């Protein structure tokens, strides 16, 4: 037993800032000071507070060191471990009163959070199954296969009120029940780990930080629906998550937690991985199944639903990673405990990837029903650089933008839909006054056009046409008619597309049209972009008081729109200027103004 442990975050964000080297240096330093018997370095999953990463947490005193560099390792060991003195310069500083906060639970970022799906992330070593077992791991599975019938277990999931965390929020227990009713010689449990939403990384963090919870939940699901085979469809772009999942599956097999006659029961279950290859549409379950069968990931018409005919035409139950991560807790703490959290129709917690123009970027887990204001200002620490809040985008390319007016709306599956957005997988991108909402809508449409599988016409061609209109508008060539076309087209695509991707693809456009109509009108009528993001509408002028007449702008202007004598202030001829912005980039004296 070690007296002390140093937990080092090895999530993707922290690894990008050399957390692996920190682990190395800490180990070297412990060895040099002959402390290897006393203290141990543990690499854990994501702590969530990516803004302040890399993070090193020392237990048992719960000291939370932020933005640690490899060269700090020696000081942590000599000061903290050896002499028992905290390294105050690495402690988190409260942004308001500038005081140091030692324990993370007193930080604004963590105070309002409640960790269920992320319960083990940043706590255990994900590559060691024993650490998961110590924290009640696999005891839910033991309870289910030895004490409960599949019907009883499904009932408990139903009572908990758990809804699918992948986007649409379908009740999980009901999904299991439907799949359990179809009889077949073979059924499948599939875990959808094809996280494609740009700006969401909770599934990856769970798989990297707590892979065993997914294995346990999939086995429970298998017992409930009568499946003996589990498949995880995971993005090939997530090599670390793949590696950790493979290790966990290997260890679970060794311990007999996967395989034949689990816990001495008649239930057998095993699982394997299937790799995605980068297609957003494969998040849709029928497309995902096609992809697992080695085909193009194109969705098909439902019914039949996968519950009846899925992978290899067998009954298949598909759930998202975060959904599965919630399952063991429901059995450990009881469905009543779980359903007491959240709102009337959305139970439990939701993980959000908080990013964009916000002070505390990171992964957060909050009870359903929390308000956007609490998330942005209390957990997120407000808008970066003291700018004004403009909007928050939820649900990724299928979601929409929420504005100031929605700040006090309690967030759950239904309230977000009512506000014109959706939960989606839980990306939450905060935008400030410098973001042009027309450009944001264009950004998402570009994504959709690239990711549309092309099977059905409204999505393939309709979105392309919408994108062309938005390009026209951002180039200052749009008309008021275009705005009507945009709206009409959006509704047609919504109504006539085959799958969820197409049906929700116009949401970013519709919600920005709804909430930021003035901005569209300004682009179209006044040819102005408030946020100064649309280059074509920028007006470049030279400040004669600052210009030194160095001629660099005139020499670089591709259309010769700038004239002037050497060492005299220059002038931009607006009728020739193509708004390319080269002069602005080249000027060494900041003499070019952009309006």
């Amino acid at each position, binding site marked *: 037993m070690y007296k002390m442990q140093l937990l080092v975050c090895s*999530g*993707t*964000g922290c*690894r*990008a*800032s050399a957390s692996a080297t920190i682990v190395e240096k800490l180990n070297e330093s412990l060895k040099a000071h002959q402390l290897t018997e006393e203290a141990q370095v543990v690499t854990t999953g994501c702590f969530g507070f*990516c*803004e302040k*990463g890399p993070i090193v947490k020392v237990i048992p005193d719960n000291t939370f060191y932020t933005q640690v560099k490899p060269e700090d390792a020696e000081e942590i060991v000599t000061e903290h471990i050896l002499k028992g003195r905290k390294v105050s310069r690495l402690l988190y500083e409260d942004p308001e009163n500038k005081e140091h906060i030692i324990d993370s639970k007193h930080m604004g970022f963590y105070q309002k959070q409640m960790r269920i799906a992320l319960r083990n992330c940043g706590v255990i070593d994900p590559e060691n199954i024993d650490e998961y077992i110590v924290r009640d791991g696999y005891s839910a599975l033991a309870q289910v296969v030895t004490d409960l019938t599949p019907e009883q277990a499904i009932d408990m999931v139903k009572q908990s009120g758990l809804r699918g965390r992948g986007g649409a929020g379908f009740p999980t227990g009901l999904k299991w029940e439907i799949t359990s009713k179809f009889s077949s010689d073979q059924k499948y449990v599939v875990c959808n780990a094809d996280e*494609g*939403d*740009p*700006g*969401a*990384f909770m599934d*990856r*963090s769970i798989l990297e930080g707590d892979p065993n919870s997914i294995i346990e939940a999939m086995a429970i699901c298998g017992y409930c629906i009568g499946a003996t085979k589990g498949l995880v469809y995971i993005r*090939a*772009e997530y090599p670390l998550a793949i590696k950790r999942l493979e290790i966990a599956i290997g260890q679970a097999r060794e311990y007999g937690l996967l395989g034949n006659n689990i816990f001495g029961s008649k239930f057998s279950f095993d699982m394997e991985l*299937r*790799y*995605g*290859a*980068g*297609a*957003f549409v494969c998040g849709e379950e029928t497309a995902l199944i096609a*992809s697992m*069968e*080695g*085909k*193009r*990931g194109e969705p098909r018409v439902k019914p039949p639903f996968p519950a009846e005919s899925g992978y*290899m035409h067998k009954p298949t139950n598909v759930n998202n990673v975060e959904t599965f991560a919630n399952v063991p807790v429901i059995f450990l703490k009881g469905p009543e405990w779980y359903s007491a959290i959240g709102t009337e129709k959305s139970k439990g917690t939701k993980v959000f*990837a908080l*990013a*964009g*123009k916000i002070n505390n*970027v*990171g992964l957060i887990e909050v009870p359903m029903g929390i308000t956007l204001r609490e998330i942005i200002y209390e957990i997120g620490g407000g808008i970066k650089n003291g700018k004004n809040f403009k909007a928050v*985008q939820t649900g*990724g390319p299928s979601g929409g933008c929420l504005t100031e007016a929605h700040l006090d709306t309690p967030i759950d599956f239904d309230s977000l839909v009512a506000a014109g957005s959706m939960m989606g997988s839980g*990306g939450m*991108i905060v*935008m400030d006054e410098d*973001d042009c909402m027309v450009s*944001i809508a264009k*950004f*998402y449409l570009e*994504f959709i056009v690239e990711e549309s*599988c092309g099977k059905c016409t409204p999505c393939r061609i309709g979105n392309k046409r919408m994108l062309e209109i938005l390009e026209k508008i951002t180039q200052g060539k749009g008309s008021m008619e275009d705005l009507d076309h945009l709206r009409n087209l959006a509704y047609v695509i919504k109504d006539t597309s085959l799958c969820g991707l197409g049906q929700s693809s116009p949401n970013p456009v519709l919600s920005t049209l709804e909430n930021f109509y003035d901005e569209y009108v300004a682009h179209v009528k006044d040819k102005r972009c408030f946020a100064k993001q649309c280059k074509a509408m920028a007006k470049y002028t030279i400040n004669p008081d600052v210009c030194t007449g160095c001629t660099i702008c005139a020499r670089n202007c591709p259309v010769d729109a700038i004239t002037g004598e050497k060492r005299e202030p220059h002038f931009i001829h607006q009728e020739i200027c193509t708004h390319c912005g080269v002069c602005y980039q080249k000027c060494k004296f900041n003499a070019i103004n952009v309006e």
Partner: protein
Amino acid sequence: MTKFEINDCHKKTIKEICESFGNKRSELINILHKTQGHFGYLPEPVQLEIALNLNMPLAKIYGVVSFYSFFTMTPKGKFPVSVCMGTACYVRGAEKIVEALEKELKIKVGGVTQDGKFSLDCLRCIGACGLAPVIMIGEEVHGRLEPQMIKDIIKKYE
């Protein structure tokens, strides 16, 4: 760029990969992953060889290769540069980083430098939103970027 010429040694490798997956069509995506891992990309002659082994039309293979963004038919540079175009990076100025890279490397997105050293691509969220905007060069992540930092970063690899 020279055209990919397939030789017997290549054919043997492809045959072995296909056999390791039991020559099953349902394993096509895994086979393509493994083949791309070996050759670095999937030129047409390689796809044809897979088609022969699995006894399925080349068009089907091409359909799958062209569908998924992970598969590529052009070779990458020695140092593949990928710019994250996730929303978090986008709102923190990823577009300006792309422009700076295009200028520095003198290639467009999707291109390879003439000496084959660098290739430039965009990718979707790598999950390092706290460091936005980020780029990846090979396996290495560079975060909290400003356009003027690009020059020095590229220099390190030259």
